[in-house]
């Protein structure tokens, strides 16, 4: 009976987000909010398919999500002609990672990108041509994008393998932090005070939310409390870092156009939180 209620809740949230996405499109809330709703919607599509069909099918929905994020990042990057094989290698590592999540091969998932992809891509770049100048920059930039926009997102997928509700808990907490940041965003405080205010405002909500969901996520209350305190910190750190990256890539947050930062900006807050929450849960709870 409980599982029916849980499934119902997931489907209800998915339907709610779908309605929200339609509303956001008609009301013209701005590209940033619209992109964010789409981002969340994709994840809830994954969770709904997990509950209704199977995780093995649902996890593949992450592949286009990773692809879109990575494509956006590479499009904004100043690449050389000979880096193209490296980019192909990065794109090709997405299905491998998804497959390792699907078959629950943790050891391979965790090294697929940081070991194999990171070693193969420089080799592909070196094979691509004879221009040595800028190679270090290219390798760094390509590997980093792959790490951030594929590997870190992949951790949300693996978390959903542990338990759909753990992943939902993470995304809802991140969404709460983002909502608070969005509402307080126009205050124009200096960055550090602003971040402290945002943390103070979102931490009680995330703690309560995590504790409230503890029955469904299966995370004991102590750990739920720690996660509720920890996630807003990770979100703040991630967002603070991503601002620098977005500005260097030329992403203007106030006018996000297609292909220029929609996916990167939407995922910015989850990128730091996802792997750390995943490893926290894996270390203490599995």
């Amino acid at each position, binding site marked *: 009976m409980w599982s029916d209620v849980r499934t119902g809740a997931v489907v209800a949230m998915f339907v709610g987000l779908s309605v929200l996405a339609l509303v956001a499109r008609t009301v013209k809330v701005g590209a940033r909010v619209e992109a964010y709703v789409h981002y969340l919607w994709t994840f809830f599509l994954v969770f709904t398919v997990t509950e209704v069909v199977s995780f093995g099918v649902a996890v593949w929905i992450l592949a286009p999500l990773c692809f879109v994020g990575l*494509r956006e990042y*590479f499009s904004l990057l*100043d690449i050389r*002609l000979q880096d193209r094989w490296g980019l*192909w290698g990065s794109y090709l590592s997405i299905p491998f990672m998804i497959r390792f999540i699907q078959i629950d091969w943790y050891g391979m998932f965790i090294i697929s990108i940081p070991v194999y992809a990171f070693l193969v891509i420089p080799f592909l770049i070196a094979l691509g041509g004879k221009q040595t100048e800028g190679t270090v*920059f290219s390798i760094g930039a390509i590997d980093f994008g792959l790490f951030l926009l594929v590997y870190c997102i992949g951790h949300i997928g693996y978390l959903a393998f542990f338990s759909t509700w753990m992943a939902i808990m993470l995304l809802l907490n991140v969404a709460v932090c983002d909502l608070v940041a969005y509402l307080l965003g126009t205050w124009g405080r200096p960055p550090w005070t602003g971040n402290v205010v945002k943390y103070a405002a979102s931490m009680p909500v995330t703690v309560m939310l995590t504790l409230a969901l503890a029955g469904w996520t299966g995370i004991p209350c102590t750990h739920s409390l720690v996660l509720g305190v920890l996630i807003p910190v990770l979100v703040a750190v991630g967002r603070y870092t991503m601002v620098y990256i977005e500005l*260097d890539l030329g992403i203007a947050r106030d006018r996000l156009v297609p*292909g220029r930062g929609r996916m990167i900006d939407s995922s910015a807050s989850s990128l730091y939180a996802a792997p750390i929450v995943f490893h926290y849960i894996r270390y203490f709870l599995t």
Partner: protein
Amino acid sequence: MRESAHIISLRLLIHLALVRPFVKLFFGVNAVGGEHLGDVDQCIIIANHNSHLDVPLLFSILPAKHIVRTHPVAAREYFSRWKVLFRVVDYLFRPIWIVRGEKIEDPLKGMKDRLSSGHNVIIFPEGTRGNPGEMARFKTGVGMLAVAYPDIPIVPVFLLGPERAFPRKSPVPLPLWNEVTVGPPQVFTGDRRDITAALEHLVRELSESAVANRHRRRKRPKPPFTVAVLGIDGSGKSTLSRTIAKQLANASSVCLVTDGLELYQQGSRKEAQPLLSEKVREAVGKYAKTAKSLKHYKAPKLAELLLRDHIMGEVARWYSPDFIVLDGCPLMNLAAWANLYKEDRFDADACATALRVLSGQCDTVAREDPVFAEFPELAALRRLRLTSMKLPDAVIMLDVEPAVSVARIESRGEQRQVHETEDKLAKLRAGYRLVCNVVQTEFGIPTRILDGDATIDVLAATALAFVGENLGKETDHE
């Protein structure tokens, strides 16, 4: 009639259901101002051309009503290399095929036919895909078409992204976003050249808004501008080079390579990070000065010059100054010294060949060239691959009578080096003049010979004016 209507609708379906979703989902298309294309019934679309992706991209933003009656201009001889590809392209886009280089009566005939029957034409006025990210000059064919059809509006389009997603030099496309900026439709009147120029200007304007906020790597620092001051010993070249360095340093950073390294920034001397090779060079230089005969002088002096040349590269790498002022240019000194040792066989031709060999253009000189037999040192240097010495960007030579310079050296009270006698300095002076001449005529490096008897202020002012004149000019020896 019915059959053709059927085919046309199938084409439309393929475009809307296959080509367009593929282009949009695989590459990503962001259309800016796409509504301009819906406003017109018939138009000539002009765009910059960098990639084979350009045509599918343009078709992916065309309103449905335009798709089946729009025809890009394409080069037949290129696509007809692959039969299947040719047929697919011919079916999907119905291009106006032209054969480049073919002499026909009216190359615009195909386009005129389509325009007369109410269809649209896509033209890439650059003619060819060109270098990635660069826009070539527009050819005037588009102007002629505009003159012939003054009522059909022209829509300028700028494509950003295809040069990265599917560049000319790459065999496979890569998923990367593209931005299609469409300008408002306009009609033009006037001369075909004026119209072409106006269109080129329009597309460039569109490009500026699109390209401006693209991520760029840090620019590579400009290589320093190297000024060499030449002259025989005692001509005052050290003094002159130091004065020039100090004056140039008022607005930039300058490294003076003389007996030691001196770094000047904002008009004052700065502490320079020590370089190991500089210490070695100083020791070798000191040893060379103690030589008792020309024969003993040769090897250490050669080593010193080679080290000095190496240091020029080190200086550019570690200090990245705006200017390097050289108290004697290693490469040119080396050539001039050949005159001292083998005066009878050293002429302008030999000098030019030697400079070519030593400045890294070794492959332009034949291996059997007689110059290698006459100057075995040159052959040895080539064998040791010590042939990447640097030519300066500007040369100043201080010309002084040997007698005067010997008097100056004596008045300094230092120990005289072996070559510092009047006749040897005269030979050296002739050598320098010869090298300067060759460098100017054969290598196109600006050279000025100054009379060393003038006062230092006059000399410095003339030298600085000369450097200023040549600062912006491109030198072609690199």
